[in-house]
């Protein structure tokens, strides 16, 4: 407390995604769920993806955290929606941060949360796919 806040350092886009976050919610029939925590500040993100024909058909998120964590969560759902799975490699925390017109330096670690959640959701998706494939084969 009393060590300074960064309210005025946030870009308009960050504030927009913080106040009107896109794709908020949970998904009953998600094909992949990524759940990650940020060891620095205790932030927590859940990312749900629905995959159809090799594309992200739908995505939802829930995030516990500060303005930067919420804004990056919202932005990454916007960035991945409709993309093919192979295109998702390009969605790094740097891409998310740039799409938000930047973040205060001290808040950059928050953007890692979104990238990690995406990686975790994809990992979960591929694991489930593999399991289904095995079930079908047997």
């Amino acid at each position: 407390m009393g060590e300074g806040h960064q309210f005025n350092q946030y870009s308009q886009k960050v504030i927009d995604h913080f106040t009107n976050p896109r794709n908020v919610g949970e998904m009953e029939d998600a094909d992949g769920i990524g759940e990650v925590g940020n060891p620095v500040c205790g932030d927590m993100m859940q990312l749900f993806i629905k995959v159809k024909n090799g594309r992200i058909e739908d995505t939802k998120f829930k995030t516990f955290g500060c303005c930067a964590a919420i804004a990056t969560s919202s932005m990454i759902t916007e960035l991945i929606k409709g993309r093919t799975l192979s295109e998702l490699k390009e969605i790094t925390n740097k891409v998310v941060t740039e799409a938000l017109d930047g973040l205060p330096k001290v808040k950059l670690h928050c953007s890692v949360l979104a990238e990690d959640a995406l990686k975790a959701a994809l990992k979960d998706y591929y694991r489930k796919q593999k399991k289904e494939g095995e079930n079908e084969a047997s």
Partner: protein
Amino acid sequence: MRRVNFDHLSCSPLLPEAREAMLPFLSEDMGNPLSRHFLGEKPAKALEEARAHVANLLGASTEEIIFTSCGSESNNLAIKGVAYSYKKKGKHIIGSPIEHHSVIHPLKTLEKQGFEISWLRVDSKGNVNPEEVASLIKKDTILITITSASNEIGTLEPIIEIGEIARRNGVIFHTDAVACAGLMEIDVRKLNVDLLSIAGNVFYGPLGTGALYIKKGIRILPLIEGGIQEKGIRAGTPNIAGLIGMGVAARIAKEKLTQRKDFLIHLRDYLIDGVLNNIPDSFLTGERSNRLPNHASFCIKFIEGESILLHLSFSGIAGTSGSTCSSEALKVSHVLEAIGIDPFWAQGSVTFTLGIDNSSEDVELLLKELPKAVDKLRSLSPFGRRSRGIVRE
């Protein structure tokens, strides 16, 4: 938009009377009190008047007041000044874990320099136990430093009892009274303190002004060396206009102490009850009654403090938080940690400090806007009772 300041410990408005008194010293009466020519006369006289007002607010004599630039400087000067001055007598210091950073950091620096610091325990409401203070005193204890009230949780500490223990054992006692000055009656003789820090802005003087009471006979080594300003204990040209403003604010604070205190306690209780009744899964931090008259601090479960502050700020309400993400240092409040709050709940910390410029309408606005912000953030949170996600009780 209505602007509501519930962050008075960071910045309180300047009293018009203080501003009026300052203005001439920024224009026609500007001068250096140390000058031996006509330009120094008025500032020198006004500075001593200001000193008398501050002394009167604390029940001290004028020669016991040293002007500084802020509460943090006062704390640094008291702690390092005593440690360096008395190190031949001993190197043991007793401190509490709920001090302001301007006490904690100097103590840690001294620790690195070979001083031994004993950290007291505090209970879950932030109370220091005087008996523990007594039990920690050793032959080489030179200083006890304990805040009069934590700026983060508002709990009032048993300064009189600790003062008696310090006096009985011949140990120097410093208290950081920055959050208390002008809000609680302070009489340095009754408190048995040897050093006491205050800051002008907390009682509606200008920002960037402070003072340290140093009981006659206590030796202090200066942090800033140079000329003989402030008896050589704090060299350097002082912020004349600012200190004159602080003097006027101190005079008025003394006159209106009871009136302000009663007003603030009433408003504070309205706010505390309102928040606890309107926000499910929230709790107060610190003591309910034995706390600063203007202080209300909470943890709101399942959401994060900076996010709450930002939503409130959009609604014109200023508050503060001890959450990790609201600190530049990315550390959760050491005070909330010390009183044993689960670090997860500490992320939902919000603190409101009220002032004489607030009204019940301001509290009503908060009670309207805060639940909205909380609901919005909880709808985003993977935690909580309503979420199908992770539940934390």
